[in-house]
């Protein structure tokens, strides 16, 4: 994991906030409520006990719900206040202008030519 004040940090020693984010992302990516073991597969280099701690903390904050299913708990993300606040900013992207310019976006728009080029690159990479 690159990070920390001077650029590098040992793998596995991620900040708590980052780990919570990774767990939350995995829960949102799942099709429905999943067990902690399924989440662990999606978040690499994390001990099972650490994962349970993170899930419990997220439950405590109301960002995740859990219910008993059979012998274990299954977890699901909550569409919470944070998400609603973020949705407001999300809609800014469509408006453009200065307010959209201060948001650092992951990907920008593509032209038709870009799309074809990307398809080729993706294809070439997966077959390599």
């Amino acid at each position: 994991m690159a990070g920390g004040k001077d650029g590098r940090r040992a793998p596995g020693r991620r900040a708590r906030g980052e780990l919570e984010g990774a767990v939350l992302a995995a829960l949102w990516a799942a099709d429905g409520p999943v067990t902690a073991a399924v989440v662990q597969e999606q978040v690499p280099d994390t001990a099972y006990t650490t994962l349970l701690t993170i899930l419990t903390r997220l439950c405590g904050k109301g960002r995740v719900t859990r219910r008993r299913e059979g012998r274990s708990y299954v977890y699901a993300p909550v569409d919470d206040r944070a998400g609603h606040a973020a949705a407001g900013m999300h809609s800014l992207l469509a408006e453009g202008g200065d307010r959209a310019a201060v948001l650092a976006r992951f990907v920008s728009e593509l032209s038709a030519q870009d799309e074809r080029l990307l398809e080729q690159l993706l294809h070439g990479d997966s077959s390599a």
Partner: protein
Amino acid sequence: MFWPVPMYLPLLVSAVLALGAPWAGRRMPPRAGAWAMLCAAVVAAGTWVTELAILAFTAVGQVPLVAAQGPWSVSALAAEDPVSRKIAAVCAGVILVLTVSLTLASWRRGRALVDAWRECRDIAAGGDLAVVDDPVPAAFAVLGLPGRVVVSSGMLRLLDGPERGALLAHERAHLRHRHHVFSLVLHLTTVVNPLLRSLERAGAFAVERWADEEAGAAVGDRRVVARAIARAALASSRAGQAALAATGGPVPQRVQALLAPPVRHRVGVMVAFSVLMAACCGSLAVTAHDTERLFEAAMHAHATAVRVSAR
């Protein structure tokens, strides 16, 4: 008589820096390139504004009220001034316009940043990630204390585990290295000098590449980042978000760069950057010195005239 060429030299050198810096910056590793281009943009914009101010002052100095403050002789200044009065007046006008537009642009961009920062506090529910329940793939970072990464559920479902890690690492790199400040400063330099627009674009691209490389280091495989970017961009594009695209966006270049070996440091490019920036500052110093001598001569003429009339 003062030779006019040195008076305009800084404008020429800063134009060379403005147009050459994007070319050189693209040939550097992203992190070093982003910093070099930021410095170049600030030096070029600073030289441009200072030079305009110097040129404008050779005319402003001929206003009797201003000359009385020196005091210097208006007629001596007018006779020796290598800058035509028309050009100097135009420079003064440009300085006024630049001051107004820079103030407006800083205010607008600054307010947008503060608004985003405020909204960030509402998103600060825990962890550094806020998820918007929306099938359209989208992801961005918001500067704040601490900053937040906002991702749509559509984007998270689209990517696999390592690719999600790459996406989060990319956005966190933006937050950690304050990339918003880079884009703010680059934007303001283009307001001062439109010649710097291509440098702004190259700088913004270097910043994205920097975050990409950090993400590659975080997930331990640069190809995973390339795949995440390509899939996210294709999916966003198909979701109809790309209606405004005609610029041949930098996404394919980012993917290509990640699939190619990392760019190595090149001493020559660094030297070229330093030489050009030094030339900017040096030529400005020469102009400032020449202008100072011009005004000194006019002050001397004034003092002599006063002595003669006193006799």
